[in-house]
């Protein structure tokens, strides 16, 4: 986790320049005028050492260091602030905000539009002004340079799937490197954090299927049979229910979903088996360029273990590779506009949270004092959050839930001869796409479709849905009957503070002219993650430099999403090809391309299989054709937990 700090001139100030910096680690980071400051604000109204920032997990603290002109929030001088994303802080003539970023990218010294182009970052500097960098210039740059065959950019599940396939298809670990952000080598660290924040503890089940096994490319044994075997070994016959679920799902039985902890433990085992840690490099990729010898050069900043070494130029390095894979994932958490505005205007209020931020204290307080929670959004995360509030309600019955959704839904989406089911104003399906998108007719049709047809298909199959779970349906119907769960429809006109509570004003609909006020102690935004991939500067830079095409936009209005970059059916980025060099991508950066569920475990595995199969066709070194014999031999090795 890093924080990206942005500063701009305050209103009526025009002689100072805006800027932005990404800080990784715990800090403390200094805001000030002196040259040692991480956030360097060169202005006489800023003290040399004006304030410091400390990062503890997702909690950011801002302390004024006895500055002359003070650190101000909404005009009030503060000495210490628990700084929340989006809250504006005034330092001299500057206004600072920050956001948590997940991206791979260093925004170190990147400039905002209108800044002086001479203030370019020193690394990789002018060398990367070229679309094709001569290899000799890289060698003579004096930077530490490493050459490798296969390089995965991004340290998460997307890279893991690709590297897992490469290793099992025959590539030696010494020919593969993975670059990920420093604090944790485990491929699921970001995924796990998002799960925990959105109230999926380790023992909860996630929205994934038995055969979506990121630790096993064959999909067998699935998580259901593993769970059954484990239970039977303990003498618990009830374990048989998991394989029966798979047998009957989704029609005869409720769809099986694995426990988060089981997925994580299986990933740990596989990571060890394929020597993931030995291939790992901690650092942030700054930019990618083609080289003149049919390869790619990657400029990155290696992470430093010691804070003292933090600004050493030795950390700016190059890697040259023939085959790349980009899986940088979601750039950031979404936050509804009116909630952002509220946070800006009420920086001290802790009443408004995003479900992907840590917000345990909300439930703790509710359990102690009771209160009213307003939940916005109707997807699977909203379902889980409602369940979590319901659990709090078991401890304190004095809790009310208000569920605010834009409009009622009575009819599900239609496709061909079928239609999606609707309960409680939410469309229901087992996963975020119909199952056939992972390996059936829908996958085939989508892959073969034109861009126009693709957006139509994805509009029908996608959208906000939740899973069919008896306990979730029970919670809502009980809540409605007993009166502690109420649903409201409408658009938000505005929000304000009333004491420590938050008032949400709903716009009157055509038929009901009067507007409505909802008063709540907490508002939890469950509207999801954004996939604006060009918020990741690395991706934005590739798109700009190599004219990489974008997939068609899907959705309407507030649900409109800018889609991913163009990839072929083999998940190659055609515009990035450089002779014998090839670049692949997977995950959300390829959204609305040849596969619908690109951000799912099985979608990542499909993309990995397609791209590694393509590498085999290209006769890339070490990559076998992976026919039946090799496949079954490797499967036995997996069972024996032997190195591939």
């Amino acid at each position, binding site marked *: 986790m890093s924080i990206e700090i942005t500063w701009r001139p305050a209103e009526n100030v025009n002689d100072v320049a805006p800027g932005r910096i990404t800080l990784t680690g715990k800090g403390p980071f200094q805001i000030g005028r002196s040259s040692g400051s991480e956030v360097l604000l060169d202005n006489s109204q800023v003290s040399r050492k004006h304030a410091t920032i400390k990062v503890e997990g997702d909690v950011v603290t801002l302390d004024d260091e006895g500055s002359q002109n003070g650190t101000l929030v909404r005009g009030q001088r503060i000495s210490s602030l628990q700084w929340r994303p989006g809250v504006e802080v005034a330092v001299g003539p500057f206004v600072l905000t920050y956001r948590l970023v997940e991206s791979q990218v260093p925004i170190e010294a990147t400039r905002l539009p209108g800044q002086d182009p001479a203030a370019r970052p020193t690394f990789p500097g002018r060398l990367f002004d070229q679309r094709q960098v001569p290899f000799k210039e890289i060698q003579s740059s004096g930077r530490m340079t490493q050459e490798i065959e296969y390089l995965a950019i991004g340290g998460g599940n997307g890279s893991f799937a690709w590297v897992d396939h490469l290793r099992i298809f025959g590539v030696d670990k010494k020919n593969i490197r993975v670059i990920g952000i420093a604090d944790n080598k485990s491929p699921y660290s970001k995924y796990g954090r998002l799960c925990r924040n959105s109230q999926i503890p380790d023992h909860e089940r996630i929205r994934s299927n038995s055969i979506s096994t990121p630790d096993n490319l064959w999909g067998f044994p699935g998580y259901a049979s593993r769970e059954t075997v484990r239970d039977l070994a303990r003498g618990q016959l009830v374990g048989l229910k998991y394989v029966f679920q798979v047998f*009957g799902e989704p029609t005869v039985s409720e769809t099986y979903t694995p426990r988060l902890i089981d997925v994580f433990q299986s990933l740990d085992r596989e990571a060890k088996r394929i020597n993931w840690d030995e291939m790992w490099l901690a650092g942030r990729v700054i930019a990618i360029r083609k080289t003149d010898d049919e390869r790619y050069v990657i400029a990155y900043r290696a992470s430093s273990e010691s804070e003292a070494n933090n600004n050493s130029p030795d950390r700016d390095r190059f890697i040259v590779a023939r085959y790349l894979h980009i899986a940088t994932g979601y750039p950031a958490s979404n936050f509804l506009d009116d909630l952002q505005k509220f946070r800006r205007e009420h920086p001290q209020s802790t009443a408004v949270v995003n479900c992907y931020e840590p917000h345990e204290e909300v439930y703790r307080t509710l359990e102690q004092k009771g209160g009213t929670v307003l939940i916005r959004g109707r997807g699977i995360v909203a379902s889980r959050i409602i369940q979590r509030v319901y659990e709090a309600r078991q401890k304190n019955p004095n809790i009310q839930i208000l569920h605010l959704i834009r409009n009622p839904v009575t009819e*599900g989406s239609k496709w061909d*001869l*079928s239609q999606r*089911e609707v309960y409680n104003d939410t469309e229901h399906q087992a996963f975020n796409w119909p199952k056939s998108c992972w*390996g059936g*007719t829908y996958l085939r049709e989508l892959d073969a479709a034109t861009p126009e047809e693709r957006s139509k298909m994805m509009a029908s199959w996608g959208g906000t849905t939740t899973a069919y779970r008896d306990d979730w349906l029970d919670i809502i119907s009980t809540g409605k009957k007993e009166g502690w769960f109420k649903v409201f429809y409408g658009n938000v006109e505005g929000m304000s503070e009333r004491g420590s509570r938050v008032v949400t004003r709903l716009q009157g609909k055509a038929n009901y002219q009067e507007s409505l006020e909802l008063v709540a102690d907490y508002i939890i935004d469950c509207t999801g993650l954004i996939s604006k991939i060009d918020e990741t500067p690395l991706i934005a830079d590739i798109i700009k430099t190599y004219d990489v095409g974008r997939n068609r936009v899907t959705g309407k209005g507030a649900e409109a999403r800018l889609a991913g970059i163009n990839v072929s059916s083999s998940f190659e980025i055609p515009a990035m090809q450089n002779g014998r060099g090839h670049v692949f991508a997977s995950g959300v950066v390829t959204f609305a391309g040849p596969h619908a569920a690109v951000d799912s475990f099985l979608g990542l595995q499909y993309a990995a299989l397609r791209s590694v199969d393509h590498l085999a066709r290209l006769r890339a070194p070490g990559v076998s054709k992976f026919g039946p014999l090799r496949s079954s031999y490797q*499967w036995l090795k997996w069972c024996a937990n032997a190195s591939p």
Partner: protein
Amino acid sequence: MVPTLAGRWQTRILLYVFIGLPVTFLYAMYLTNWRWPPAIDLSAFTDPFVFITAILILGLILDVAYIQAQRFRWEGDWPFAFQFFFSIMEFFAVYVGMEYFGALDYFLPDGRIPFETAAWHFTFVFVPSFIAVLAIVQIFLVRWRYKGGELGRF
């Protein structure tokens, strides 16, 4: 399962070749007292092959109907439970066709196979085939599950 029509057909033929035929051969050997060549009564040896092939052909035809039925399912899928149920129905359909409508008369010199013989035969073929679809095929054919049951590469 999320089969395509070609996937249903190809998987069915794959199972017929790798499980149906070998199991039927062993079963026919058993029926003719493990004597080779089965000199006395050749039809006792060939009847099981006729029966299992009849199930294959009926299945290939019904697959067209199944794939149409699948279009009514939002998930575009075909639960294992359906596969299980309809496989057994296919057996009964062939048996009833043979026994009461003489559908296999042309191929069966005696015109019939006793129910018990046919039922055991079907069980020996069906159980391993079903297990193969659940678990075994993907160990050998890693692309099969993404291709709706079709064989080969992408």
